[in-house]
């Protein structure tokens, strides 16, 4: 279909202080081959040509890996298709005449900066608290093959490391919990021998920072895993719980 007409209900907010509200727009001539963000480009071109301010939204790589795009579309983080980011969502998932709700990722820890752009620096601060292995970048480490790592653990670590830090887990969680994000990073390192050295401390520090940022508590609904564009598994949260518990008890 090359000529879809859509009604968009979009959150508009001038800046962090502004109250903001949902505003209705119509777009016409949308092709099913367009990506969702290209549809937004069409809307913005329309707005600019009519002298209005375009809708601000975060986006960069548009190939599903940078984690910038962050829209809550029709009640779901990154929209209705599972395993995709907003930039990889295509208009063929919608039909002519649809009404589409477009909102920012919402959480107290992700304050809105403008329109659909939110501040996700809380994620960075959690990483500062422990998202690293304390080694120098001197190049004088041991040979890369000096410590064999079981393939199974290496693969699980990779699965956890796929997180793109988009915040869909927080946005979708009814509690705005960041446990999947933190669990993924803690797991990646906990599964590798080089990360185990500081594993317990890492879990404690990252969780302490997560709490300080105002994210909610995890109640194991599993919504985060379903909406995660990279399919990060819930077992990573269990592993985080385990790391934290064993760190607290010993």
């Amino acid at each position, binding site marked *: 279909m090359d000529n879809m007409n859509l009604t968009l*209900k979009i*959150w508009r907010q001038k800046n962090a202080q502004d109250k*903001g509200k*949902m505003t209705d727009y119509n777009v016409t001539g949308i092709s099913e081959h367009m990506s969702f963000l290209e549809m937004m480009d069409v809307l913005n071109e329309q707005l600019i040509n009519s002298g209005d301010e375009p809708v601000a939204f975060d986006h960069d790589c548009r190939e599903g890996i940078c984690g910038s795009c962050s829209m*809550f579309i*029709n*009640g*779901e983080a990154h929209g*209705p298709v599972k395993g995709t980011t907003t930039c990889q969502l295509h208009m063929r998932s919608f039909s002519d005449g649809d009404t589409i*709700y477009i*909102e920012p990722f*919402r*959480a*107290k*820890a992700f304050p809105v900066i403008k329109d659909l752009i939110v501040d996700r620096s809380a994620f960075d601060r959690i990483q500062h*608290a*422990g998202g690293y292995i*304390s080694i120098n970048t001197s190049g004088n480490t041991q040979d890369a093959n000096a410590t064999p790592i079981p393939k199974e653990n290496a693969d699980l670590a990779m699965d956890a490391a796929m997180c793109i830090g988009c915040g869909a887990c927080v946005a*979708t969680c*009814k*509690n*705005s*919990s960041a446990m999947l994000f933190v669990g993924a990073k803690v797991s990646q390192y906990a599964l590798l021998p080089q990360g185990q050295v*500081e594993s317990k*401390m*890492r879990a*404690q*520090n990252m*969780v*302490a*920072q*997560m*709490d300080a940022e*105002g*994210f*909610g*508590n*995890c*109640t*194991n*609904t*599993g*919504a985060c895993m*379903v*909406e995660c564009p990279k399919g990060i598994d*819930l*077992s990573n*949260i*269990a*592993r*985080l*719980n*385990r*790391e*934290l*518990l*064993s760190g*607290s008890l010993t």
Partner: protein
Amino acid sequence: MASKVQGLTSIGRKVIMALTGFFLMFFLLQHLSINMMSVVSAELFNEVSHFMGTNPIVQGLLQPILIFSVVFHFVWGMYLEYQNNQAREIKYAMYKGSANASWMSRNMIISGLAVLAFLALHFYDFWIPEMNVKYIQGDMSGMLSGTEEYRYYEELVHKFKGQPIRVVLYIISFVMLSLHLLHGFQSSFQSVGYNSTKYTPIIKIAGNIFAIAIPAGFVLVALVHFLSH
């Protein structure tokens, strides 16, 4: 890396929810086992009830732990719900919770509060009179007044016989308990950090069986006494 943790973390809080949950599930299991005895044999039920009601370890140790667990589980649960609610100040105009999580997991507070309301009724029915008889009136005999017969079975039957409203309330409550357990059972394991590709599916199945069978058992007891007397 140096430690920066002070006090209880959010994970610590949910672990306590899980541990009290485990204890309460264990309690449900033993409560049901005794209740089921009333269907099989009034005498057996009476004897075990008397034992539980007068044994110092049960009364002096397990009962306080139980009360603590119940109170803690509820108060903490509500506090966490409050906190979680605070974590998103502006709500979504459109939120499709059903697209990614079960009703049970999203509404533990509703099923939990329903169970709390039930507990009030249940305490009014059984526990408060029981405490009154034993510790205020000081009658530790367990006998119906003026007889040589245990009172427990009689009291139980009395509550359900010809009491359709109470039975219906009990059934509704146990449906809510079932919904609570359908999420709570497996969630407790996840909270304490247990998740394995091999056993988690088994835990989920066991949890579903537990969550349905236990409330069904309680409902059965109520129905038997409602219908058969």
